[in-house]
């Protein structure tokens, strides 16, 4: 005899109407999709003056880069928050992107600028990502693989990691021959206005690969959000699942950092907004919402920066400013609770 026969023997079943649980987020997501399509169309066509042969490939690659970065930042932040069990952290706050910059620097330092600049950029990128996966995997698995640690400890560790990686990278950059430093500078000063076009297709491939992996373990995300103990009770191999997710996060952070440089607070902005707008905890909704909002902000923001400020200000300053405010608000609210 199973539980249901046991239970039904004691009480009669009452029929209740089936709920349409997903109608609200679905409608909102559809609306968000329309907005995203609109902003992309606007970006492609605004002030094109009929030079389609030039505009389409030029702006198309730009859109591709923005979409890749949006996707990478949004997905990595949402999943990082799920793994670490809070809404205040993001990979960048824990020093992921600083680690990537350090790896870039060490590589130039070790190979010498000449070798680094003649090395195939795609190959170099893949090497950097591989090293990043290795180190981030080891470091962050140790932090998140076991019992859940306190937010205070994580924030502190994140600050220490960030400062450590950044200052080590800074020191090495100063040790490099000034002439050779120019090579590194090209790499390190990637931004929304001057992203690295060489890496676009490799980045796209990495993002697709990572997404396939995530798709296959997608059913575990909601369970992970319940906390380690509940997840283990429900049969999840917690350590393994967390490791896989951290590896994909490391790849995504590498991609966005290589394309446009470090983005610290933006992920926080879109992840928290996604939870607000979607009104559900389910990742199958939260993730598309976060990606959609992220694209909307970055593409829309880039358009504003290009047309209003005529490139005089950087998009990262704008999105970081907004994201930073969200971070401060979250910290204050978290302390108040």
């Amino acid at each position, binding site marked *: 005899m199973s539980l249901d026969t046991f239970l039904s023997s004691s009480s009669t079943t009452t029929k209740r109407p089936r709920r349409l649980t997903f109608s609200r987020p679905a409608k909102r997501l559809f609306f968000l999709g329309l907005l995203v399509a609109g902003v992309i169309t606007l970006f492609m066509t605004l002030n094109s003056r009929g030079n389609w042969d030039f505009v389409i490939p030029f702006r198309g690659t730009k859109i591709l880069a923005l979409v890749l970065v949006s996707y990478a930042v949004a997905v990595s932040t949402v999943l990082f928050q799920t793994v670490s069990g809070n809404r205040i952290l993001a990979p960048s706050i824990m020093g992921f992107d600083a680690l990537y910059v350090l790896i870039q620097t060490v590589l130039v330092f070790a190979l010498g600028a000449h070798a680094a600049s003649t090395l195939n950029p795609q190959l170099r990128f893949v090497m950097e990502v591989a090293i990043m996966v290795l180190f981030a995997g080891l470091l962050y698995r140790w932090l998140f693989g076991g019992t859940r640690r306190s937010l205070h400890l994580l924030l502190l560790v994140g600050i220490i990691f960030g400062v450590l990686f950044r200052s080590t990278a800074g020191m090495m950059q100063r040790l490099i021959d000034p002439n050779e430093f120019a090579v590194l500078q090209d790499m390190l000063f990637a931004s929304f206005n001057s992203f690295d076009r060489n890496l676009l297709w490799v980045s796209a491939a990495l993002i697709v690969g990572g997404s396939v992996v995530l798709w296959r373990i997608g059913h575990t995300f909601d*369970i992970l959000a319940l906390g380690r103990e509940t997840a283990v009770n429900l049969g999840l191999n917690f350590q393994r699942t967390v490791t896989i997710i951290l590896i994909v996060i490391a790849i995504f952070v590498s991609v966005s950092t290589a394309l446009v440089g470090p983005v610290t607070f933006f992920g926080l902005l879109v992840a928290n907004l996604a939870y607000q707008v979607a009104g559900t905890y389910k990742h199958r909704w939260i993730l598309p919402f976060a990606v959609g909002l992220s694209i909307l902000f970055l593409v829309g923001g880039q358009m504003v920066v290009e047309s209003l400020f005529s490139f005089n200000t950087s998009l990262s300053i704008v999105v970081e400013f907004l994201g930073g405010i969200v971070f401060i608000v979250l910290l204050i609210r978290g302390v108040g609770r």
Partner: protein
Amino acid sequence: MIEIKNVTKAYDKAVVVDGVTLQIPAGGITSIIGPNGAGKSTLLSMISRLLPMNGGQVLVDGLDVTTTAGDVLARRLSILRQDNHIGSRLTVRDLVTFGRYPYSKGRPTVEDLKHVRMALQYLNLESMSERFLDELSGGQRQRAFVAMVLCQDTDYVLMDEPLNNLDMKHAVAMMKILRRAADELHKTIVLVLHDVNFASCYSDYIVAMKDGKIACHGSPYDIINANVMCNVYEIDVAVQDIDGKRIAIYYT
């Protein structure tokens, strides 16, 4: 059967579970009693592989809990923890549906939803199934977590203080549900209880723990007596036979 062999847990130098060896027979209710800090929760966490042990072995139906695949074990053994906190904002129904994850892997079938409905019904939660957990009273929330564990429908059910926050009526109802699950479904139920009289009235077997060790174990009749109670809890306890049950009186 759950076989606990020389299980030990230490934090730094402090040994909190000290070489516990115990066999919990299949079928029936086993209650673990003992003072605060005796190591009851720690032992239960190790049995359910939530906490790694420093030494020893736990076998559930012959499966070693530290090496058996998590999802295999999740269909055989479930645990309700002493304090449950969930970060996400879930409704009662969402929470209970998670209890089916070991079977559904996130895609509940009609069969799974039937289990969910039954568990809600059984714990008297139907009227609040769409409410958020953080908007419930402590006892209502406790019942929601119990419903989730029942929904997992495992042969072995471990519960750390399932009567937490429950009023008299719901506490008795809960013990009756567990008793029936043991009698009719032959489930093996292991409870940590602080109310020794509930342990006395509903268990087949009582284990008393103190200072990380098993002080004694046996039938309620053997364990609930003035001597043992005084030994374990270090207070004076009078024990009387009322309607064939041993009742401890310790309020004054």
